[in-house]
């Protein structure tokens, strides 16, 4: 297919662009296969380059022959284009609609994008499972890296290499995979160096109504327990939901068959409910009614903050079991690709200082979301403005980022990265020139040859100029476990994402820069003091007369 077929009017002059808190720009609008571009052709005005895949929905309005297109983006920005000429406007609108909803992955922009920057380190090779396993090997010899899934036949959503208990062979794993939803057998998610306890994740066990059991499954997870110790299974569903799952072939680990495990049920909502919550929240944030009561009750009705709280609470629980109770944990919900990953990744942010560095956080996203098979393509196909019927969309990943932001806000000095990294990752999960978040699993990414044909987001991030922008100036490495408060009073709305386009950030940005400036100046002065001290010490040794008696 040629993009040109979809573009009836490739350019229109005299288009006026309205953006929140920015001066209006008049210029020429161009449509290309992947971008909507508006340029005033003047040097000092910023151009607009908008990826079609970032467009969530559009609205058309006409006043006489002047048409307006309101473009609502997946990053929650809303812009307006005033287009002279009815026909041009309709053409542009229909092109945008068609181009922004192309389903074919191989036509996506990442396959056409050529980096304009020097790649210092290829992000596709930065976070390989075998490297992560080397770190694990240095701490323990109780685990091995299994290649049982090397052709993705045992579990299509798992990576080719997974860490499993040393004593469990590949045949056992194959049997266990048939007993777990989507073939997602229990694998290692995190090893707690301090006490050797582990966190594992999986899909739900397929016990069904007649209570099927699988000795191999029991053997596998028991292999992670120390003699005489008990473990915890954190089921992210309520007991009722878990019971109902039996009717559809799913289920949970019964006390009878898993006597060494204590099951805890939590209530993290499933995808469609989360998507509705996001839509309501964004609608509330854009409410212009100036009524405080209305805003607060809409915020409440969206339930978004409740979801944040539930997820954080469950993650804290998992972390507590590991760090305070000294027990190993298995986390799963239904498929083990959404709420499960929220819990396991957040628990690592809490427990492991390494995950709070810029590189560690990328590694965490890579390990616990991309390689763990979170279906980004399905989940992030639409955002809060879309009018089409939601299918598999869900802001699971955005909720995870929101929770990280809550912890970051409560521990402003414990993270090497600033809020900007979280916003950046959110944007790219929904629309990107990079291939990182394309596809739903490792197997899909391998089929599409993404590492060969596209650029990784991490290649862009891991360059000095970008790292500098993403670094938290207040960072001081904190090797402790950080326990966030999950009281409703402590949780805030993430303004950086949800009110980003509704407020002018000029003053806040200035303050941030001033703070960075102060910190840099402070470092400079400290260096000066140190070198002066050294000089003084040297002078004193050279000239004994200077030494005070």
């Amino acid at each position, binding site marked *: 297919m040629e993009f040109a077929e979809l573009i009836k009017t490739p350019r229109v002059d005299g288009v006026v662009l309205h953006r929140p808190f920015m001066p209006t720009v008049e210029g020429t609008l161009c449509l290309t296969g992947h971008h909507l571009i508006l340029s005033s052709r003047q040097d000092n005005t910023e151009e607009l380059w908008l990826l079609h895949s970032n467009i969530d929905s559009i609205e058309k309005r006409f006043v006489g022959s002047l048409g307006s297109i309101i473009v609502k983006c997946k990053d929650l920005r809303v812009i307006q284009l005033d287009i002279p000429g009815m026909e041009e406007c309709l053409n542009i609108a229909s092109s945008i609609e068609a181009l922004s909803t192309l389903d074919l992955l191989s036509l996506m922009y990442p396959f056409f994008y050529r980096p304009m920057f020097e790649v210092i380190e290829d992000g596709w090779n930065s976070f390989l499972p075998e490297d992560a396993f080397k770190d694990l090997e240095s701490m323990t010899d109780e685990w091995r890296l299994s290649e049982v899934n090397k052709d993705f036949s045992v579990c299509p959503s798992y990576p080719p290499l997974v860490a499993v208990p040393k004593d469990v062979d590949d045949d056992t794993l194959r049997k266990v995979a048939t007993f777990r939803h989507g073939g997602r057998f229990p694998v290692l998610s995190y090893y707690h160096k301090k006490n050797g306890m582990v966190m594992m994740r999986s899909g739900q066990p397929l016990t069904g109504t007649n209570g099927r059991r699988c000795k191999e499954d029991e053997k596998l997870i028991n292999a992670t327990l120390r003699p005489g110790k008990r473990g915890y299974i954190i089921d992210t569903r309520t007991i009722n939901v878990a019971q109902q799952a039996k009717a559809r072939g799913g289920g949970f680990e019964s006390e009878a068959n898993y006597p060494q495990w204590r099951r805890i049920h939590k209530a993290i909502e499933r995808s469609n409910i989360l998507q509705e919550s996001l839509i309501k929240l964004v609608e509330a944030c854009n409410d212009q009614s100036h009524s405080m009561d209305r805003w607060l009750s809409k915020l409440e009705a969206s339930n978004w903050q409740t979801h944040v709280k539930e997820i954080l609470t469950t993650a804290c629980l998992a972390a507590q079991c590991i760090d305070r109770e000294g027990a190993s944990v298995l986390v799963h919900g239904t498929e083990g690709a959404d709420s499960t990953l929220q819990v396991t990744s957040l628990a690592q942010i809490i427990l492991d200082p390494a995950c709070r560095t810029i590189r560690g956080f990328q590694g965490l996203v890579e390990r616990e979301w991309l390689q763990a098979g979170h279906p980004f393509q399905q989940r992030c196909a639409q955002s809060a403005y879309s009018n089409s019927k939601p299918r598999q969309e869900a802001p699971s990943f955005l909720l995870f980022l929101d929770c990280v932001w809550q912890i970051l806000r409560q521990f402003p000095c414990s993270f090497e990265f600033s809020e900007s990294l979280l916003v950046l990752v959110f944007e790219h999960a929904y629309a990107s020139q990079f291939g990182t978040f394309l596809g739903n699993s490792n197997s899909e990414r391998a089929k599409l040859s993404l590492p060969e044909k596209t650029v990784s987001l991490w290649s862009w991030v891991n360059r000095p100029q970008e790292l500098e922008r993403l670094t938290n100036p207040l960072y001081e490495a904190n090797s402790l476990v950080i326990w966030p408060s999950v009281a*409703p009073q402590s949780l805030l709305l993430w303004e950086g994402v949800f009110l980003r386009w509704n407020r002018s950030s000029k003053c806040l940005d200035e303050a941030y820069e001033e703070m960075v400036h102060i910190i840099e100046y402070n470092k400079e002065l400290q260096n000066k003091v140190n070198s002066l001290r050294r000089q003084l010490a040297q002078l004193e040794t050279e000239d004994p007369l200077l030494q005070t008696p």
Partner: protein
Amino acid sequence: MEFSEHIKTANVEDVVLRQTLHPPSRGTLCVTGHHLLFSDREEGSCRQVLLLLRNIDAIEKSVENLLAYSCPFSNAGHSQRISGSSGTISIKCKDLRVLHLDIPGMEQCLNIARSIETLSCLEAVSEMYPFFYRPSNASLQDQWGLSSPEKHYSQMTELHDRWRLSTVNRHYSVCPSYPPAVIVPKNIDDAMLEKIAKFRQRGRFPVLCYYHRKNGMVIMSSSQPLTGANRKRCMEDEFLLQAVIDGSDKGYIIDTRSSQQALQARITGGGFESKSGYSSWKRLHRQMERGKALQESLIKLVEACGDESHNMDRWLSKLENSKWLSHVQTALSTAGLLAECVERDGHSVLVHGSEGTDSTLLISTLAQLIMDPCCRTLEGFLALLEREWVQAGHPFQQRCSHSAYSHARLQQESPVFLLLLDCVWQLWRQFPLALGFSEALLLRLATEAYASNYGTFLCNNQQERCVLRVKENTRCLFQALLRPRERDGYSNPLYEPTELAIWPSVHPQSLQLWRGFFLRWTPQARHLEEAQEEIRNMIIEWGKLALS
């Protein structure tokens, strides 16, 4: 009266103090005339808690251990039961802190509780701690206050053409709640002022609050005119206001009541400026909550903040029900309107509600912060508070006698000053560079207004302060805050003066709960100040480096 009459048990050993964010500690509790002193006895630590009794809003007693001792199988006699039991006193402070004291011995516990109850709400101002407070580093000869109306007038030379300093109120006879000297239009003589004072509630005739240098426009404040049901007029009052807008086409009157409320006020003798009498003035009504409703809002908010149900919906709906954030929004948007009239529209404004001592001062103060860079420095802000709140007669004594925990029947309490501080905090949050002072200052002021070592917020107006010789017998808080050691902690390290007006966003989405104050003593607040602290330490380090 002797304080000792109220203290039956002055000293108790083996008391356990429990407080959020601190491990429990065991030590000695002492009650004095003005303080509760707890000192830790454990080795290696020397925790001391010194609490002004005045800071205590409410106490609750419970004697839970008694049950265990009075069970029917116990052979213990009656006397043993009493001596072996213990009680807990929960102390809820006006600064929203909550302390629990486990006190051995029923009788001691009850004695302590009774002493606290009596001593914490003594009415006599001259018995209050500021009259006894004698810090070693300052003498009473220090200047009291930052400025005076006379000094303020003499510094504002651009005023002298059209405005004069009147001392008509030098004996507080014309308006008891005004300072002895006020600024009024030059061609209005004292005899006219006396007549106008009779036409305005409690004599609060229109006086100058603020002169906008950029365009010469002013903010005036007063109380409501006493037109009553038969629409009385006062030529002198009309004449005064005409003199204010002399040379301009019109002025605005911002009435902080709804037009309905203003109409109703006529029945009780109040009213508003009618079109016929004040043809060049355009009246704008903005309903601002005051008095009891505001106090109830605070009580509900604090209750919501203390809610431990861990339920997000409950928290958000309680926050909404308290209406506190709506009051913040109304105050800021009315102040924005006022500033817009003066700065953008280029007209003078008269502000009043009914008495002119609450919402009037609130919005005129906020408007000055929005427009005038001089008010945004640490000194400037304190001077603004001194002028617009202390001297202008905000009845601190009445408004701040109880806070959110008190069980006492509401009288004249109302957290107007606290609402002001909250609004200033919102400004600070939206313009982190524009204000020369920090959140710590706002927190300190919020505490001091309710209970203080200093005399600044004592009494309801200058006349009362004069009678009690507050200036001669107490220390001034504002002076103390500006001392070099204190001011470090209260200045904003990011401050960069700007000449521009700072227009706050009043979208509900832009306003936030002032967590630093309302959640200050809850476990959630643990990390709120960490980043601020970090920056502050750096600034202090610089200071040291610069010296060495």
